[in-house]
């Protein structure tokens, strides 16, 4: 069954390089050269480098598609901007004087929530695009390639997370408009948390997409996953002093553990009365115990790993 030598013999008699400027086909010499060229490439074995190349390429594809779709970039910014500046302004006026000193108001409170929301929506949209890949056939091109399925999933998640982070960075740039200072330490930790959240949500979306057959299922994910995640996360209202049934639900929202550290850090950098600070950035509590930021981020990282594992497993099973 080993016929490797046959090709090797046939393929050695022509120079492997292609002379410059050969535009036209048709002459016998050109064809002869083609034979050598078309046959010259040997595909490498299943080494880890191959998987790295696959991850990088899948990631790059996401970025290429994102950069080419300017309309998508703009439209997906419209929603957070409306939330922040229209809903935020409206709610601020409802609250009267704002949060106290320093000109900060309810928009300052909403800002980290809206940044997290940008991450959430962009990351979910990116990862669920696998369903479109399936619909239009490109997923099969990926699945039949001689690389580990895990590499494809990691590349897809990395791409989705990068895109979500870029979108959220654009929102982050608006910090000054809502009286959040551009302090390097604040920006640095917010970006870190955005990346972490983006990875976690993209992995979740990818795991969901692995079991979604039709494009229509995207609506289901939006209604049953994304919106509950969003509303229960504390992005729009403080999680303190909620009725018990609602307070309990918020504890199970992974996004709450992303919004909370971001908000606490923002409030570390703005001047607000202690009472206001406690109300708006009091942190998530478990049975009265205030969960430290480190644990919240650790939890998010663990969830990201879990969702990624599920996504890799699920795609390993796909035909």
């Amino acid at each position, binding site marked *: *069954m080993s016929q490797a030598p046959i090709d090797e013999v046939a393929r050695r008699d022509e120079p492997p390089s*292609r002379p410059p400027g050969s535009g036209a086909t048709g002459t016998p010499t050109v064809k002869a050269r083609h034979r050598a060229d078309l046959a010259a490439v*040997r595909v490498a074995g299943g080494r880890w480098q191959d998987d790295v190349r696959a991850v990088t390429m899948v990631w790059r*594809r996401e970025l290429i598609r994102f950069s080419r779709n300017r309309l998508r970039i703009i439209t997906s910014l419209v929603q957070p901007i409306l939330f922040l500046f229209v809903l935020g302004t409206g709610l601020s006026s409802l609250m009267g004087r704002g949060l106290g000193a320093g000109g900060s108001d309810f928009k300052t409170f909403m800002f980290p929530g809206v940044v997290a929301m940008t991450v959430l929506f962009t990351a979910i949209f990116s990862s669920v695009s696998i369903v479109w890949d*399936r619909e239009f*056939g490109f997923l099969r*091109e990926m699945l*039949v390639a001689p690389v580990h399925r895990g590499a494809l999933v990691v590349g897809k998640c990395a791409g989705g997370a990068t895109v979500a982070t870029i979108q959220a960075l654009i929102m982050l740039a608006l910090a000054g408009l809502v009286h959040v200072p551009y302090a390097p330490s604040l920006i640095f930790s917010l970006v870190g948390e955005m990346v972490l959240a983006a990875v976690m949500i993209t992995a979740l979306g990818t795991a969901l997409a692995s079991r979604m*057959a039709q494009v229509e299922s995207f609506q289901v994910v939006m209604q049953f996953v994304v919106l509950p995640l969003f509303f229960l996360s504390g992005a729009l209202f403080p999680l303190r002093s909620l009725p018990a049934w609602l307070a309990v639900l918020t504890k199970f929202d992974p996004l709450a553990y992303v919004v909370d550290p971001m908000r606490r850090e923002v409030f570390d950098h703005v001047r607000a009365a202690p009472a206001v600070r406690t109300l708006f950035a009091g942190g998530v509590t478990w049975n009265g115990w205030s969960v430290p930021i480190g644990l919240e981020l650790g939890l998010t990282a663990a969830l990201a790993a879990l969702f990624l594992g599920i996504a890799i497993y699920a795609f390993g099973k796909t*035909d």
Partner: protein
Amino acid sequence: MAIEARDLVRRFGTLDAVRGVSFEVAQGETFGFLGPNGAGKSTTISMLCTLLTPTSGIARVAGYDVVTDRAEVRKRIGLVFQDTTLDDYLTAQENLRFHAELYGVPRSQTGPRIDDVLEMVGLVDRRGSLVRTFSGGMKRRLEIARGLLHSPRVLFLDEPTVGLDPQTRTHIWGYIEELRQREAITIFLTTHYMDEAEHCDRIAIMDGGQIVVEDTPERLKASVGRDRVQISTADDEAAISALMERFGLDAAMSEGTVAFYVAHGEVFVPRLFAELGVAIESVSIARPTLDDVFMNYTGRTIRDAEASGSERMASSPWMRARRR
């Protein structure tokens, strides 16, 4: 052998899509599966491409088992599917680059290699265009180029020209013919177009999940041994019964004419005029085609088979894959 299959079986629930298929394809050969939709061609091809696990039986492609050595098989095969699997929002070149990276084509060779395959299918000028601006024929050409990018041993073409207009079909076949001459590549294709099967070195006619007969197109046509005669008459019913009574020929209506098979048709026709007893309006005699071969071995035309097989097509693996 580039491909060898033994007793391949694939069941979907209670449906036996492929029931015990065995064949061999030699290195450098162009081998075609001919049959109506739903005959089990696509199911067989997807088992050979490692996309579907056989219910039973074994198959080896390029020397590797399609179940136990999937990755090795995948590195050595190129695939062109019925449905397009290009990314519409990438350019032609980006689609090829993606493929090269996933198939581990050495970096130094990726650029020249992309140039070569683009040149081969005549898409060099459009390399920077988004694939969504391509016509159906251009997309198919790009897919063939992509299938060749990593120098596969075996190129699988599943209905390579389905859904294309006749002119583009001819064009695509031009590329495939050129490819056969240039490369020592083995080509395995499926088609339900009789005229396309003529391009193959050897064909297997498939019907109802089994290989009915397998040989070169020439020998298959010769095996029919009889010419196809079609007449239109003043009274077709009477002509059919007269053919049976006087000549012992089993005639049937086909495409609005009375059709039957007879050895040495040109010798037979003068007798027909003299002895039939029904006025004949026109006569045509044709040497056997693959249509006749199909008819001869399955007892029906491929068009009839298509009509009855259409429900089965709905459960073919590709259709399922799209719905998953």
